[in-house]
């Protein structure tokens, strides 16, 4: 495109010192020039756009595609369900099967190269087949947390009640999460909190970090161990203060409901929300966070709770 734009500025072919002749020739000269340049400009911008409306029937984040069941797209495609690429991963994360969308199909110079842009969800009421929990089952601050049994990175069974007397910061991840603002951010910020707590033995002894995977099929103890060591900079002793654990799907679902976590597996990738829970030393929910938090805010709340001055509340 830049070359095309530059090309438009290079028009000075008229011979010098022939003013009269130029005046006569100009219209005849300009017309073919303009027409030719116009055709070249069009040739350089050969993408076409078609409006699309339809229902998302599947999505494949790894391939960057969503499958849309759409009506006729005159000039491009008859009514059918077919996969379309979407460049923005955030869009793929956002849309769910059952959503009705409006978008533009952009077709490149090669007609086999097409994708969607300007995707908007127009109706979410059909969103279904989700096993996402409803918010109504989420524990209120002050409620006692269920004593779920988990298996940690060493293959050892642990229970939430094992941490009685400590303030526990719990979050949920899956190790293959590729979205930097989700699981990698959670684990990175937990690592920062862990490193800060290590500096003060009084805080370290009264606190615990717990990262729970909601992908137990893939996140075996060995996988969790490797994952945890990466965030502990290879220091195995850190596992005594920061467990990486998982559980059977039924217990995970129960815990997710209790802690307001939503997750749904599709195409080996898991769409999920974020949930961070602070459990007070007495085993009750002290506070929740979802997306708006900073590591130092979490650290401060954890320390306050550990020393018996937690603030109940949540987002």
């Amino acid at each position, binding site marked *: 495109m830049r070359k095309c734009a530059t090309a438009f500025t290079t028009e000075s072919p008229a011979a010098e010192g022939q003013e009269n002749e130029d005046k006569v020739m100009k219209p005849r000269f300009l017309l073919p*020039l303009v027409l*030719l340049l116009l055709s070249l400009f069009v040739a350089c911008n050969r993408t076409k756009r078609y409006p699309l409306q339809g229902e998302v029937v599947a999505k494949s984040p790894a391939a960057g595609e969503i499958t849309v069941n759409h009506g006729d797209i005159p000039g491009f495609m008859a009514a059918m369900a077919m996969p379309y690429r979407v460049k923005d991963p955030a869009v793929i994360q956002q849309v769910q099967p059952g959503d009705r969308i409006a978008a533009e199909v952009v077709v490149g110079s090669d007609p086999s190269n097409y994708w969607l842009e300007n995707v908007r969800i127009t109706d979410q009421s059909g969103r279904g087949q989700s096993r996402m929990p409803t918010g109504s089952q989420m524990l209120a601050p002050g409620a006692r947390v269920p004593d779920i049994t988990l298996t940690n990175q060493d293959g050892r069974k642990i229970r939430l009640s094992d941490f009685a007397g400590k303030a526990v910061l719990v979050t949920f991840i899956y190790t293959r999460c590729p979205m930097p603002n989700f699981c990698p951010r959670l684990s990175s*910020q937990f690592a920062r909190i862990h490193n800060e707590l290590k500096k003060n033995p009084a805080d370290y002894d009264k606190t615990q970090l717990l990262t729970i995977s909601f992908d137990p099929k893939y996140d075996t103890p060995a996988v969790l161990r490797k994952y945890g060591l990466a965030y502990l900079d290879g220091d195995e002793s850190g596992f005594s203060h920061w467990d990486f654990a998982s559980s059977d799907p039924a217990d995970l679902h129960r815990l997710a409901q209790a802690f307001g976590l939503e997750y749904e597996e599709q195409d080996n990738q898991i769409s999920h929300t974020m949930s961070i829970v602070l459990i007070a030393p007495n085993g009750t929910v002290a506070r929740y966070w979802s997306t708006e938090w900073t590591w130092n805010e979490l650290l401060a709340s954890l320390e306050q709770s550990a020393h018996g001055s937690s603030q109940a509340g949540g987002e």
Partner: protein
Amino acid sequence: MARRPFLVAALLAALLSCACEPKRQQPGAAVIEGEWIYDNNCAECHENPQPDLHKQPPNLHGLFLRKSLPSGALATDSQVRMTIIQGKGTMPAFDQRLREEDLKNLLAYLRTLR
């Protein structure tokens, strides 16, 4: 003589045509496919600074121009493939998430990054 401006215009247009369509070879289908895979799975971490992450993901431009990968391992297709599938350090594993064809296309694209 009256025809000269028209000829000049036609010649100029022909030259511009060359400018619009560079002589260099168009990327193959594998590279185009690989770019999609890269944009949707890799670019967010490897093309942008990630101050919230424990370790900064390395920039992958020129990955295959160097003898060794950021990890120190040899810069070979098999090593890069293994890193993608198994993950490395805090980089998540893409195991079971990319098809064999996706991996081949992604490697083809990574080789074009300068």
